[in-house]
């Protein structure tokens, strides 16, 4: 019954089956990823990482809907859950912490690695400064954090559960890193090296810009240690002043991030205000500006709709109480608004409003404090730096140098007093100048306890202004082992727990004591 043709068919079948089984070498070619690259140019990584970092620390979640309430520049007029710290608990702030490490910090690390591999400080030094700028927010917000073992997930033999390092050790390394960044930049050959160029959205590749930013940042972090380790604070501050390039010398040196305002990359405040009308000036801010006649008030806020007065809102009311103040309190200033919003038209240029990673005003106020403490600031008195700081802030916000400014500067409570009173004035001015950078304003408030009227609102869920945020819920879930040493050394994972540098001041001239920021 079986003929030759049938055998032939059977043979063909058998051969075909065999061929199927054997032709498997080409399969791996199917798995080459056509969508993304296995390497990326460092400048493109840098651009993206800077934008991401600015969006994080000066953006909506951490700044506008987080630390701006905590430091009470602003108050929440609708559903004031963040203002009551409720929606600042661990699960709400985890994304900021997680995203910083896995987002821009890791990319800065890749730029540092690429620059180091080619021995090019024009590439790695800006990335070192930016990485430190980001780590500054991280440690000043959470305290002990992973640092030395962090950002190394793809290195051979690295741990997937980085240990939380003591804040002291992290600060020590900040100073080393920033020292290296500015020195290496200064020592880099003036030709032959290709830097980041236009891919650097802050200084367009200017090495002097990065030297000054590096040193200014070092001064910021040094001063933060003044209550816990005044000797180190002094040493590092003076080293920053003396480092190549020096500190910022004018607003032109500001670490400015220019938002294109093209609808894709807009200033995050403007983006939020497009659809949300939740923000009013805090009555803590207005209390420190309006009675004194601070001309910046017309930039920081808009007059209340109801009567044209600058009036702040109490922080952390109930929804019912807060919303009653919708028209009787001041919105943030028109410069922050994009024009058309879903609830009306305000301002217009907000989308392209630049943000500042660090300003000359802050530097002058740091110098004023250092001078008041008797440190070597390379010239100038506390009073002269204090005045320069206020003027720099006014200039930065576009306040005209007119009679109103002069009158403000001449007010007895504004004119520099020196001593502990002077430190208080410096601290309040810095808190005002840091409008728009809630994280820094909050950190400085914790260090100085100024202004003293910053206390939790009536509906706050704890009766003290938070001293830190709670650790990321992702971290408590997957890295409990890494957190353990921090809980031992730093204390329980609560809003109330103070971090390493957050100590009551010991050495005169000084600020008020430890009971600050408590609900009356």
């Amino acid at each position: 019954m079986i003929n030759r043709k049938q055998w032939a068919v059977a043979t063909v079948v058998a051969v075909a089956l065999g061929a199927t089984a054997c032709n498997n070498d080409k399969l791996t070619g199917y798995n080459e990823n056509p969508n993304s690259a296995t390497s990326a140019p460092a400048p493109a990584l840098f651009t993206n990482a800077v934008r991401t970092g600015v969006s994080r620390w000066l953006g909506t979640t951490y700044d506008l809907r987080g630390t701006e309430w905590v430091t009470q520049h602003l108050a929440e007029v609708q559903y004031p859950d963040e203002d009551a710290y409720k929606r600042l608990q661990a699960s709400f702030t985890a994304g900021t912490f997680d995203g910083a490490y896995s987002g821009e910090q890791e990319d800065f690390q890749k730029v540092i690695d690429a620059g180091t591999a080619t021995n090019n400080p024009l590439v790695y030094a800006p990335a070192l400064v930016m990485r430190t700028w980001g780590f500054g927010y991280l440690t000043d917000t959470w305290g002990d954090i992973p640092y030395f073992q962090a950002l190394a997930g793809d290195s051979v033999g690295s741990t997937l559960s980085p240990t939380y390092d003591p804040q002291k050790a992290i600060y020590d390394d900040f100073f080393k890193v920033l020292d290296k960044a500015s020195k290496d930049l200064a020592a880099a050959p003036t030709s032959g090296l290709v830097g980041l160029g236009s891919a650097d959205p802050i200084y367009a590749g200017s090495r002097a810009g990065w030297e000054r930013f590096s040193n200014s940042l070092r001064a910021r972090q040094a001063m933060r240690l003044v209550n816990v380790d005044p000797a180190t604070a002094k040493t590092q501050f003076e080293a920053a002043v003396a480092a190549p390039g020096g500190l910022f010398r004018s607003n032109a040196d500001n670490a400015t991030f220019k938002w294109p305002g093209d609808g894709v990359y807009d200033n995050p405040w403007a983006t939020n205000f497009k659809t949300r009308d939740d923000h009013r000036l805090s009555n803590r801010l207005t209390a420190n500006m309006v009675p004194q006649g601070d001309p910046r008030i017309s930039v920081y806020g808009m007059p209340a709709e109801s009567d044209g007065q600058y009036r702040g809102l109490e922080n952390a009311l109930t929804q019912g109480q807060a919303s009653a103040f919708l028209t009787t309190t001041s919105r943030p200033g028109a410069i922050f608004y994009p024009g058309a919003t879903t609830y009306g038209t305000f301002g217009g240029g907000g989308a392209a409003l630049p943000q500042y990673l660090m300003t000359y005003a802050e530097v002058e106020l740091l110098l004023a404090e250092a001078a008041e403490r008797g440190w070597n600031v390379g010239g100038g008195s506390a009073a002269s730096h204090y005045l320069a700081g206020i003027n720099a802030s006014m200039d930065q916000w576009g306040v005209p140098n007119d009679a109103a400014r002069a009158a403000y500067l001449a007010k007895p409570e504004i004119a520099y007093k020196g001593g502990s009173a002077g430190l208080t004035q410096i601290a309040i001015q810095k808190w005002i100048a840091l409008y728009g950078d809630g994280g820094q304003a909050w950190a400085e408030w914790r260090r100085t306890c100024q202004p003293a009227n910053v206390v939790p609102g009536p509906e706050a869920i704890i009766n003290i202004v938070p001293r830190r945020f709670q650790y990321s819920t992702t971290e408590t879930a997957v890295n409990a082992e890494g957190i353990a040493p921090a809980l031992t050394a730093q204390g329980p994972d609560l809003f109330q727990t103070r971090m390493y540098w957050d100590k009551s001041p010991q050495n005169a001239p000084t600020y008020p004591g430890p009971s600050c920021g408590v609900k009356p």
Partner: protein
Amino acid sequence: MRAVPLRVLAALAFVGLAPMALAAQQGTTVSGVVTGTASEPLPAVNVAIPSLGVGGVTNDAGRYTFVVPAARATGTHTLTARRIGLQAKSVQITLGPAAITQNFVLAAAISQLEGVVVTALGQTREKSTLGTAQQQLSNVELNQTHAQNVMQQIQGKVSSVQITGAGTQGGSTNIIIRGANSISGNNQPLFVVDGIPVSNYNRGGGLISGYDYGNAISDLNPDDIQTMTVLKGPNAAALYGSRAANGVVVITTKHGAATGGKVRTEINTSLNFDSPSRLWDFQNQYGQGASGQFAYVNGAGAGVNDGADQSWGPRLDGRTTGCVFTAGAITSKTHPLTVPATAYDQTKPCLQFTGSGQPWVAHPDNVESFFRTGKTLTSTVAVSGGNETSNARLSLGTDQIEGYVPDNSFAKVTGMLTGALKVGEHLSTNATLQYLRNSATNRPGTGYSNSTLEQFFWFGRQIDMGALRDYQQGGAVNNGPATREYNWNYNYHNNPFWLAGQNPVSDSRDRFVGSLSATYQIMDWLNATARTGSDIFRFGVDQRYAPGNLVNADPKYNGAFRFFNDYSNENNSDLLVTADRNLSERIHLLATVGGATRRTNFRSDTARTSGISVAGIYNVANAAVTPTLGQYIQRKATNSVYGSAAFTLNNWWTVEGTARNDWSSTLPAGQNSYFYPSVNTSIVLTDAVPALRSNALTYAKLRGSIARVGNDADPYQLQTTYAGVSQKFAGLPQFSLGNVLANAELKPEITQSGEAGLELGFFNGRASLDASYYDKATRNQIFNITVSPTTGFTNKAINAGKISNKGIEALFTVTPVQLSNSFNWTTSFNFARNRSKVEDLYPGISTIVLGQGIFAEVRVEARKGLPYGTIYGQGFDHDSATGLVLTDGGIPVVSTDFKVLGNIQPTWTGGWNNTFTYKNWNFGALLDIRRGGQIVSETNAVGEYSGVLKSSLRGREIDWNNPGYVVHGIDVNTGQPNDVAVTSETFFQATFPAIEPYIYDDSYVKLREVRIGVDLPTRWANKLNAESMSIALTGRNLHTWTNVPNIDPEFTYSSGNFQGIEYAIPSNPRTIGFNVRITP
């Protein structure tokens, strides 16, 4: 009984034809008539002598005839008549020169224990020879009622198959068989239509935002399905390879048959009316506002609380004045508890968005009246016919659906052509082509940020829904922005009718599924089949946002849009050789060897922008804001060889082994080959030991199986990459390192499964039990663990972990009443209980998060040591002695830590089906039962926070100023029982978002299907070239019994692994309709 000849699925149409061809020599003629129990002729019954490989198929008159070649026409042989859905019958005949006439009367298969079933690779086999668990549904069982997705039509009918409907019409259907195997991979079964795997691609919605575009299996027309067989686990499905670990749904479609050239017609048409099966229980005593007062000015905060979208306002007592407090009666420090009743200013009118001076009253129907009655008109017309060498069937089907959400509609068109041709003596061919088009307009969005229904949980209970229909009058009419649509609130929401009607989103899938196969009969007992099939579709979404869309359109521009287009192409080709012969008088062999290749190609292109320049032109060239463009390509290839051999001894003992080796493109070279075997056995005890058989016990079979199935990875997991950003930053390119740490060492994952089963028949088929126990585990799972983000990465791809599932499943069928007057009652109960456990994860990792709630306050996880799908969230602190809630100032203390609050897996699931027939009347009712497991309802959480749900009345129903809500708890400060009274407004808003109170026992019973039908006289059908005609009244989801408040306890957003958390999802439709069916 003999093991039956094996046919590959694609050749099913030739079940009768092939042997007929072989018999085309002179010999003994065997013929007869096959009728049903009501003496009706039965067409398409296969009558054959398996031992000789000859046979025929009945024609429309039920007549068959075939010839046994003279050379083989000797001896005694078994002649078997069988057709799917009928009890097979066999008789012994002795062949000689004389013609033989043998008639059969076949009864419908009552139990599923015996008869022919379709199994892996489309083989049709006697169920008695199978060593694995599977359950088959016939076309009639499947099509009792009509659902938008064919898979919902088997809800409650197959044990261990857990099917969850979306809620959102046209949305996803989640299908889990015997528990989830994979931690983060696919857990949906594989679908195979006529031997060709087809896509069940899913574009689900989300809890935060999105649109649920449903899954692709809903493209199939249920009227084209002849049988649907569920192979429940790796054991039955081992031959399907990698994708079979989650079970396989094997679908065979209707084919043409030899009708002697006559055309046969079938028509199935129904008209159904849909409405939400459950609605929320809203309160109607207090209106919009906060702390007891409200006055509308501009809906954005200019009035008193008119920007606030919640219902903590004044009592809805018909007042026309006195909705706000006298100026100065309160200050910002005033607590609502101290507000005196006289604080309301009786000189001020109660202002509303519809104008002044209207009574402050509830509109109790204001959410219900948003919906309309949905309509579904569905029809299928098919014609078929053929002769002895060729046959064909052509069907056309349409579904026209008006959703119950306004402006939402769906349209489905299916066309299917199946043809078969015998080319010469040994070669037969078969081709199938299906065109499927499934489209929708204005699907309601899902989730917190853009769902159409979302705002009903942030709402004013006094709002007149009717007034909102006229949104075109514009926002200026009631002091809102002139650029906006007329609305009740301008802060947070768009008008729900405007959202539905003016933000058109349309989607469509155009799909071709085609296959070609050829079978060559090499020898009587040996054939080879080559087959290739492709499933090709394009799915596109065109979404337009009108200016004023709060979530998606930049108010600076004239609207916004989002487009995406997916293209998918999967080809499967295989070649298999099948041997089917008696090795001796007592041993039968059925063996297959084959090879297969699979190539998949997927591409997705997206474009979106938040602003366009010229209104109405939704085109990338009109983008005012640089569009975000996305492009993703995924390719994958696998090659396989496989084989199986089943030996049957004396018709009662079968031993079968299978083996398969796959090579996959997604695993590293050197580790991309994986082998997996299986073995199963089946013993028909009542045949092996005839003494066991009695009047009570008429059939008993034991079966057992051990199997292993390997699986590969998703593509591109072997190397960490940098992704570019399509939108340049001020002209600068941007890149970022991916967040997933790749793993160049991935190995295949392995599922190991054992099962044992018992099948019993009692009282000659009046009762039957089919029960299985299984124990399976998947190890070396490929999944992304969450790693500490401080590593610079959020996830890492690894091989680790183990999930086990153990369970029992049973189907019990009884015909308690069978009267001579033709009254018949059949009842069947199916039951499944699965115990899942996450046995192991990665060292140092205790949990894998599958998804989280809107406020990150709750997660669904695979947590080590617990069943898959743990609910882990923020709760209250409890007193260690009494277990009562700890309170502080009358308010429960919210825990800072998360804790285990439940699990989404049911304790057991079941279905209870009843069919009554009397003369030409029939009545069927199906209850679908789920017991145990928990769900999270954020609808209830938000609805209480905002004071719209009836449950938010506790604590404010006595009098606003004397709220009576005292939490039953222990005061954390005093250690004594709490005696501090708080308003419910304070209570709900202070405890938000603690999720503990919103975890519910997800037990429910649904009256899933009801059908009352009557068969019309056959002569009417005959005029239409058909055999029968029936009309019926049908209903789906007619009632839900559950303790879950407000929501439909059955919901899903996608067929992904993140399930169990709900927000503002519409309930599954309650459907009532008529059906007319004409069958050949």
